[in-house]
């Protein structure tokens, strides 16, 4: 029992973060150069547009062991390619409903619009999501996807 508790204390969530090149990725850069401290939980994948993020990328991140997936894109109206973030928003809502049906907590998938100047917002979102995931505990998605129970 004690060892489980210890493990839980040591465990920290892993977030796969898909950040759009034009906004959120630049914001994370800004957060870095501004020396804003935030939880070291994200593994950032830079994409040219949040509209490039296929639902399958997100599912893949989960089955490879992500505890949460964070999508960061430009505010509505600001997409570098005009409408990519709307596509992203629609996919996000559909995918979130799907994962809930699959028994996965909806908080494991989060979408935020963070512009290039919002380094502070990035810090807040990552910290918040890390806390939420810490409360939810480790994801079981990988294990469930890998183990077939006979």
């Amino acid at each position: 029992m004690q060892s489980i508790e210890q493990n839980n204390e040591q465990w920290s969530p892993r977030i796969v973060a898909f950040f759009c090149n034009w906004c959120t990725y630049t914001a994370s850069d800004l957060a870095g150069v501004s020396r804003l401290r935030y939880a070291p939980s994200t593994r950032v994948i830079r994409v040219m547009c949040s509209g490039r993020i296929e639902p399958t990328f997100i599912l893949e991140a989960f089955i490879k062991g992500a505890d949460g997936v964070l999508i960061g894109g430009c505010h509505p109206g600001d997409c570098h390619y005009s409408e990519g973030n709307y596509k992203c928003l629609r996919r996000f809502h559909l995918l979130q409903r799907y994962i809930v049906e699959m028994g996965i907590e909806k908080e494991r998938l989060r979408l935020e619009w963070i512009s290039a100047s919002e380094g502070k917002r990035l810090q807040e979102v990552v910290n918040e999501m890390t806390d939420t995931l810490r409360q939810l505990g480790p994801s079981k998605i990988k294990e469930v996807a890998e183990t077939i129970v006979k």
Partner: protein
Amino acid sequence: MGKDKAKLKMAIYWGAACGGCCVSVLDIHETLFTVIEHADLVFWPIALDTKYSDVEEMPDQSIDITLFNGAVRNSENEHMARVLRQKSRLLIAYGSCAHMGGIPGLANFSNKEAIFRRVYEESESTVNPDKIRPLEEVMVAEGTLHLPHFYNDVMTLDQVVDVDYYLPGCPPQSERLVEVFLAVVNGTELPPKGSVVGASSLVQCDECKRKKSEKKDIKRFYRPWEVVDDGETCLNEQGILCLGPATRGGCGVRCVVGNAPCRGCYGPLDDISDFGGKMMSVIASMLEGKEEAEIEEAIETVVDPAGTFYRYSLPGSKLRRKQL
């Protein structure tokens, strides 16, 4: 095929199946005579009285082609999958169930305990006050009787054994089966192992004759009974959810020709690694709304996304089953 050439040996087996795939083989009508001319059917439970032990005694690799239909959901299905793999040169996953898990694969939204409780205790037509459930072993005067062990999860054929080819469909179109069979008979060079055969490499929409526009601008989705289809315009553009855009062609767009939306039984194209994921991507991109509330409302009209987008492919999908 010359008379001197030995006949092929062919087997057809059903795992967790509805019987439709086996019937689709019978549906080739007179062509069955051509099949019989070229092949001896050595095992086919729906039509022949061959025992499992007869198959178990056959030499390894002695069956040229096995069409395995149905998913793997119990120990009997798994045992026969392994036996037939060992005995066959070519093992073909025949039909959606063997290919991706199919309709029986929807049981992965539940588990063994919940299914047994529903079936043997709670269903409206069940009268079982003692809550008796099937036993895997029971002793009678003549000896011990066995029932297969029911698994918690439904598996695709390739999650159990090595598969050479996939022939998709629910059931596969009989003409496609004949083509594949004749290719084997004529010794036509076969595609690389693991290929999908008897289907096209383009999506349903490519064959579909309905009018489609570049920009879809779909406002919301309707259940098919909520609207009257005009019979001409792309079903998705009318708000009737059609899975044609991610589904491999080859069936002749039969469902859409019959004014019903495509439900994806032919499975995804080669470069799609998760059928439902791709379909969700396509569907969401075709919506019109920009305001968050408007988008949420439109998305809500997609009833049961998991069951809709993975109707035939849950066990073969990335998440594979519901977390319970």
